[in-house]
């Protein structure tokens, strides 16, 4: 052991020791490709998040991919109705791992003000959600706060978490 410590000391500053997970996590957290699944009014606020004034690009999450197969983050933005739910699950299951789900706005987190016949009462009933940002709609600052928290989460993740597998969703009626 002592011998090894001496060896390490001899290397000086020319080597940095880390774990593979930490390096991968560091790389991932600054290079999110997003899939914006936008269905309702929160999308208006998402435009200002993505636009030049607030500029989500500063956090490395600017590039929207319009194919779920190329995306890491599923940004669920806007009310999800029961009719939309199977589509959302299909999109999630098409994304390659690792993947994270960002619940954007009160409607997506809990159904928001729509406690009624048509709205899914929170997408965590159909998908695993990694970050919840409430607000109707949330201000861009809140979204960035959520994004930074998600980055912290991603940086700490262990590779054993993946793959997470398909979302469990058993529709009562097959179509």
């Amino acid at each position: 052991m002592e011998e090894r410590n001496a060896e390490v000391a001899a290397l000086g500053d020319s080597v940095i020791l880390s774990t593979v997970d930490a390096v991968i996590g560091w790389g991932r957290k600054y290079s999110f490709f997003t899939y914006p699944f936008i269905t309702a009014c929160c999308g208006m606020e998402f435009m200002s998040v993505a636009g030049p004034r607030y500029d989500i690009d500063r956090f490395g999450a600017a590039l929207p991919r319009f194919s779920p197969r190329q995306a890491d983050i599923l940004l669920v933005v806007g009310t999800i109705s029961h009719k939309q739910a199977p589509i959302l699950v299909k999109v999630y299951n098409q994304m390659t791992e690792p993947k994270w789900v960002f619940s954007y706005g009160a409607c997506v987190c809990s159904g928001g003000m729509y406690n009624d016949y048509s709205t899914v009462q929170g997408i965590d009933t159909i998908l695993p959600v990694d970050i919840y940002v409430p607000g109707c709609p949330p201000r861009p600052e809140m979204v960035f706060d959520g994004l930074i928290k998600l980055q912290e989460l991603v940086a700490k993740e262990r590779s054993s978490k993946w793959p997470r597998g398909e979302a469990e969703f058993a529709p009562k009626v097959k179509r």
Partner: protein
Amino acid sequence: MVELSERIKRLLPDAVLSAGSSLGQQYVVVRREAVVEAMRKLRDDETMLFNFMMDLTAVDYLGKRAHDARYEIVYHLYSLKHHHRIRVKVSVGADDPSLDSIVPVWKGADWFEREAWDLYGITFKGHPNLKRILLYEEFVGHPLRKDYPIKKRQPLIGPEN
């Protein structure tokens, strides 16, 4: 000058039950059996020429009106020629909420009538394709009726919650 609703009443004495204006909007209440005939006349008469069916919807007056006049179907018509508009209202009862379809008069009424059927359960007799337009096929009931339980969930295709 005679008000538009009054003129319509004179034009269709058998069909119009009452006429008036509310907050500046002229309206006529039409007998349920006469609706298609009255609409055709409103569209074709030289002094009316309501060639644009702007809106068709329904209202549920549960607890506010008698059982046999529970629902009201409301049409909004506009004339591109004369630039005048009218609101036409028809009452139907709770036991048989049905009336004749006006699709033969204005084709554009098709989806409006499907929507009123989907959400209020009003049957439009003679409609070419009366099926759900907004909700999914498996949905049971008509959710905008006032007696549809607000907490009721029909997780037929979505999650159970």
